[in-house]
C-alpha cells in the first residue's frame, strides 16, 4: 500500500517536473532566444516616435516683417491593413479630400493586397479638411504633422525669395541659394504609451535643429512701391519686361529688387505655364546698358586724363569716323563741356572722351567698377555680364563701350557701379542678408572724382537740357542720375532693332546719397520709350519712397517743382549706332556751360503762420501742416517769430521761433 502511494506521488512529481520544464523551456524560448524579436514587437506596440518639427527658417524683411515662413499642416495617411471596408474608406476619403474615388480605391486595394501597412492619402491638407476628417473619429485615419512654406505677402519679392519644392527644399531665389542655412533638422521623441495609446513617458531621441531665420536687407514697403511703379511703367509703355534695384550705396544692402512680370510663389507652377515670369531679370539677364555707361567712361576720364567737367570736347557735329566706321549721334553738337556731354548724353562726346581715356584704362576701370564679374549676391544663376578681354576688343570697340555698347551688364552690376559714385569712390559688394559678411569696401576711384561725378549727374536732373530734367527730380530732395536708351540687338537678324532698353541709374540726395536706384524697362519704342520718360519717373517715385521710409531728411526746400517748358532732352538720350539726326546744333556757349540751377528764385514759399503764444508742440504741428521749416530758440511758449506771420517764406528759409517761459 505504501509502495503504491509512493509510486503515485513520484509519477505526479514527474508530471509536474515535466510541466515545469516545458514552462521554463518556453520561457527561455520567449525571453532569451526570441527576446529581441518580442522586444521589438512590444516596443512597436508600446512606443511611438513623434517628430519634433524643426521648421525651415523664416525670411524677414529688414524691419522684421515676415516674407516667408513655414507653418504646420496635417497630412493624411492610413494603414490599409487596418481598414475594415476599403470601399467605404475610399468613399469617405475621396469626398472630404477631393480625390478620385476609383484611383484611391485602387491604391488602397493594391497596398492591402500587398500587405503594406502605410499609405499617404493626401499630404498637406487644408485645416478644414483635417478638421472634417478628425470629426469622424475613425481610428484607421492617421495624421502626420508636416510643414508648408507660405509667402505671406503673396508675389511680393517673389524673384528674390524664390520658392521651395514639395519637400520644402529651395528651388529658386534665396530659398535655393541659402537652403543649407534655412533648412532645419527635425528631432524625434520616443513616447511610451499605455493600452489606450496615451503617452506617459517620453525620451528625447534626437534634438531638433530649426532652420536659421534670415533677416534680409529688403524693405517690404519699398519693395511694394518698386514693384507697383515698375509694373505701371512696363504696362504704360506696352513693354514686356522690366527690372529695378534699389540699394544703400554705403553698405551695399539691397533695399528692393523688383522684376516684371512676376508671380506668386504660393501657387505651384502649372504644367505648360509661362516660366519667363519666374526669371530674376535684375540678376540673371544682362543687357547693353547704353548711355548710363557714360558715367563710367567720364569717371575713368576724370581719373586718368586732364579732362575736367568744364573741359570742352569735340562732338564732331554729330558724327565721328572710327577706323572707317561712321558713328552718328542723335543730336549733333560741335562741342560740349564734359558735364554737358553727360547731361545731354552726347554719344560722340562720350566716344571722344573714351578715346582720350584709351582702351587699357577704360577696360581697367570697368573691371574696377565690377563689370564682367558676378557681384556675389546669394541668388542662383547670377550673370557676370559680358566684358570682353581687352585683347578681343576691335579697333572701334572703345567707341562702342564708351557709350554702353559691346558690353552687357545686369541691373545689379549697374547699381553696384552707381554706388561707387554715390558713396565716394568705394566698390561695395551688394548684399541681401543683414549681418552677412561681405568683402570689405575697396576704393576704386578718388573721392574728388566721385563727388565731381555726383554733381555732374545732378546736372542731368536739374539742367533744363538734362535728359532727366523733367522726370527724375524728387520734391524736397536733390537727386542725380543718368538716363540710358540702348537699342536691343536682334541676335537672329544680327541687327539693332528699334526696341529699346530704357534705363535710369540715379541716387539721392546728392550730397550724402542714401539710396541708389537702377531702373530698366525692356522693349520700349519711339521717343516716348527713352530712358528719361520711361524709367526716370520710376526712379523718382521709388527713391522718394525710399527716402521717406528711411527717414532721410530733406535737403531742398519744400516747393512745388517748376513747370519748365518741354522740348529739352526727351530725345537726347539714345546711345545708337545707326540712328542720327542731321539737324545742326549750335555750339554751346561758354556762359551756358554752368547751368546748374537748383530752383528758380522767383518762386515764393508758403505763407508763414502765426506761432505766437503757442507751445512748441503746437508750433511743430502747425508748421508740419503748412509745410514750413522751423528753427527754435529757447524753451517754453512762442514769444516771437521771424519772418512775421503772413509773410511769404523764401526758398530754403526757415522760420525762427523764439520760445520763453
Amino acid at each position: 500500500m505504501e509502495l503504491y502511494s509512493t509510486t503515485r506521488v513520484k509519477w505526479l512529481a514527474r508530471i509536474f517536473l515535466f510541466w515545469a520544464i516545458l514552462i521554463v523551456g518556453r520561457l527561455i524560448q520567449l525571453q532569451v532566444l526570441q527576446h529581441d524579436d518580442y522586444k521589438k514587437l512590444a516596443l512597436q506596440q508600446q512606443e511611438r516616435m513623434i517628430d519634433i518639427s524643426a521648421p525651415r527658417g523664416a525670411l524677414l524683411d529688414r524691419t522684421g516683417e515676415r516674407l516667408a515662413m513655414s507653418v504646420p499642416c496635417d497630412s493624411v495617411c492610413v494603414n490599409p491593413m487596418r481598414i475594415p471596408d476599403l470601399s467605404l474608406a475610399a468613399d469617405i476619403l475621396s469626398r472630404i479630400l477631393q480625390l478620385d474615388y476609383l484611383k484611391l480605391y485602387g491604391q488602397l486595394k493594391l497596398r492591402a493586397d500587398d500587405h503594406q501597412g502605410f499609405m499617404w492619402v493626401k499630404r498637406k491638407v487644408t485645416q478644414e479638411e483635417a478638421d472634417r476628417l478628425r470629426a469622424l473619429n475613425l481610428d484607421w485615419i492617421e495624421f502626420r504633422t508636416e510643414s508648408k512654406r507660405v509667402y505671406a505677402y503673396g508675389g511680393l519679392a517673389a524673384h528674390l525669395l524664390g520658392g521651395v519644392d514639395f519637400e520644402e527644399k529651395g528651388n529658386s531665389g534665396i530659398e535655393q541659394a541659402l537652403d543649407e542655412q534655412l533648412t532645419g533638422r527635425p528631432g524625434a521623441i520616443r513616447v511610451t504609451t499605455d493600452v489606450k495609446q496615451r503617452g506617459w513617458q517620453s525620451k528625447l531621441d534626437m534634438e531638433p535643429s530649426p532652420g536659421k531665420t534670415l533677416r534680409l536687407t529688403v524693405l517690404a514697403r519699398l519693395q511694394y512701391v518698386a514693384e507697383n511703379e515698375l509694373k505701371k511703367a512696363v504696362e504704360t509703355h506696352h513693354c514686356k519686361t522690366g527690372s529695378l534695384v534699389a540699394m544703400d550705396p554705403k553698405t551695399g544692402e539691397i533695399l528692393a529688387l523688383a522684376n516684371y512680370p512676376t508671380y506668386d510663389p504660393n501657387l505651384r507652377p502649372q504644367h505648360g505655364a509661362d516660366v519667363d515670369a519666374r526669371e530674376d531679370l535684375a540678376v540673371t539677364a544682362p543687357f547693353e546698358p547704353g548711355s548710363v555707361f557714360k558715367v563710367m567712361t567720364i569717371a575713368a576720364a576724370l581719373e586718368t586724363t586732364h579732362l575736367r567737367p568744364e573741359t570742352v570736347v569735340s562732338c564732331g557735329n554729330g558724327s565721328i569716323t572710327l577706323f572707317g566706321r561712321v558713328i552718328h549721334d542723335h543730336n549733333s553738337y560741335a562741342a560740349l563741356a564734359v558735364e554737358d556731354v553727360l547731361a545731354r548724353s552726347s554719344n560722340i562726346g562720350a566716344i571722344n572722351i573714351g578715346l582720350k581715356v584709351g582702351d587699357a584704362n577704360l577696360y581697367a576701370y570697368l573691371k574696377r567698377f565690377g563689370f564682367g564679374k558676378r557681384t556675389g549676391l546669394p541668388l542662383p544663376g547670377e550673370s557676370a555680364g559680358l566684358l570682353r578681354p581687352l585683347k578681343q576688343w576691335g579697333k572701334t570697340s572703345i567707341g562702342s563701350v564708351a557709350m554702353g555698347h559691346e558690353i552687357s551688364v545686369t541691373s545689379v552690376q549697374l547699381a553696384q557701379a552707381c554706388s561707387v559714385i554715390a558713396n565716394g569712390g568705394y566698390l561695395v559688394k551688394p548684399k541681401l542678408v543683414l549681418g552677412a559678411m561681405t568683402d570689405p569696401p575697396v576704393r576704386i576711384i578718388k573721392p574728388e572724382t566721385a563727388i565731381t561725378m555726383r554733381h555732374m549727374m545732378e546736372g542731368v536732373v536739374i539742367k533744363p537740357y538734362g535728359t532727366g530734367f523733367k522726370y527724375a527730380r524728387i520734391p524736397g530732395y536733390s537727386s542725380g542720375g543718368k538716363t540710358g536708351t540702348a537699342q536691343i540687338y536682334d541676335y537672329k537678324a544680327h541687327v539693332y532693332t528699334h526696341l529699346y532698353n530704357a534705363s535710369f541709374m540715379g541716387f539721392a540726395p546728392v550730397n550724402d546719397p542714401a539710396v541708389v536706384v537702377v531702373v530698366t524697362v525692356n522693349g520700349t519704342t519711339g521717343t516716348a520709350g527713352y530712358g528719361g520718360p520711361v524709367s526716370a519717373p520710376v526712379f523718382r517715385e521709388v527713391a522718394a519712397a525710399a527716402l521717406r521710409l528711411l527717414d532721410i531728411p530733406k535737403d531742398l526746400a519744400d516747393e512745388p517743382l517748376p513747370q519748365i517748358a518741354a522740348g529739352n532732352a526727351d530725345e537726347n538720350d539714345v546711345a545708337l549706332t545707326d540712328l542720327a539726326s542731321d539737324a545742326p546744333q549750335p555750339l554751346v556757349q561758354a556762359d551756358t556751360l554752368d547751368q546748374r540751377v537748383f530752383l528758380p528764385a522767383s518762386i515764393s514759399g508758403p505763407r508763414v503762420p502765426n506761432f505766437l503764444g503757442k507751445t512748441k508742440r503746437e508750433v511743430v504741428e502747425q508748421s508740419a501742416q503748412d509745410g514750413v521749416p522751423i528753427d527754435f530758440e529757447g524753451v517754453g511758449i512762442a514769444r516771437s517769430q521771424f519772418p512775421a506771420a503772413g509773410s511769404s517764406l523764401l526758398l530754403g528759409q526757415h522760420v525762427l521761433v523764439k520760445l520763453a517761459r
Partner: protein
Amino acid sequence: MATLAAILDRLSARDVDAFSSHAQTREPDSHRIRAFANEDVFFFTKRIDNSQIVRQQDPAAGRVCWGMIGASMAGAVAIVAVMLPALYGAFAGYKLEELREERTRLTHEHVLLELQEAKFLNPQHLQELADKQNFVDPDPRKIVYLDSKHDGTEAKRLTPPSKDVAR
C-alpha cells in the same frame, strides 16, 4: 445513506435476523442520539466542560504575534514607499505628455497667428484698406522729420551734409 454492506445484509434474512437481534441486544447509550432511518451511521454526543480550564499567559506568543503584525505593516509600507515614486512618476508622465502636446499645439497656433498677422500687414492689403478709407499719401511738403537737436532746432538734417566714406 445505507452502506453497500447494510443493503446486502438486509437482503439476506439471516443477516436481517442477526441484525435485528444485535440491535435489540445492544445496551442503550445515553450519549447516543437517534439514528437516521435505514442508516448505519450513528451519532453520539459528548459533553465537555472547559470551565475549569485556565488560559496560561504566553508572552512569547504575543511578541511573535505583534512582531508578525509589525513586520506585515512595515512590509506594506515599504512596498508602498517603493512603488509610490514609480506611481507618481507614471501620473506625472501622463501630465507631462499632455503638457508637451499642449505646447506643440500652442506653438502651431502661434505660428498660424503669426502668418495671419503677416497677411494683415501685407502692403497690398494695407493699400486696399487705405483706398477703402480714402486715405492718401501725404504731400511731401507735409512731412516734417523731427529730430530735436541740442540747439533747439527741429526738422534739420540728421546726417552731415557730406560724408564720402563708405560705412
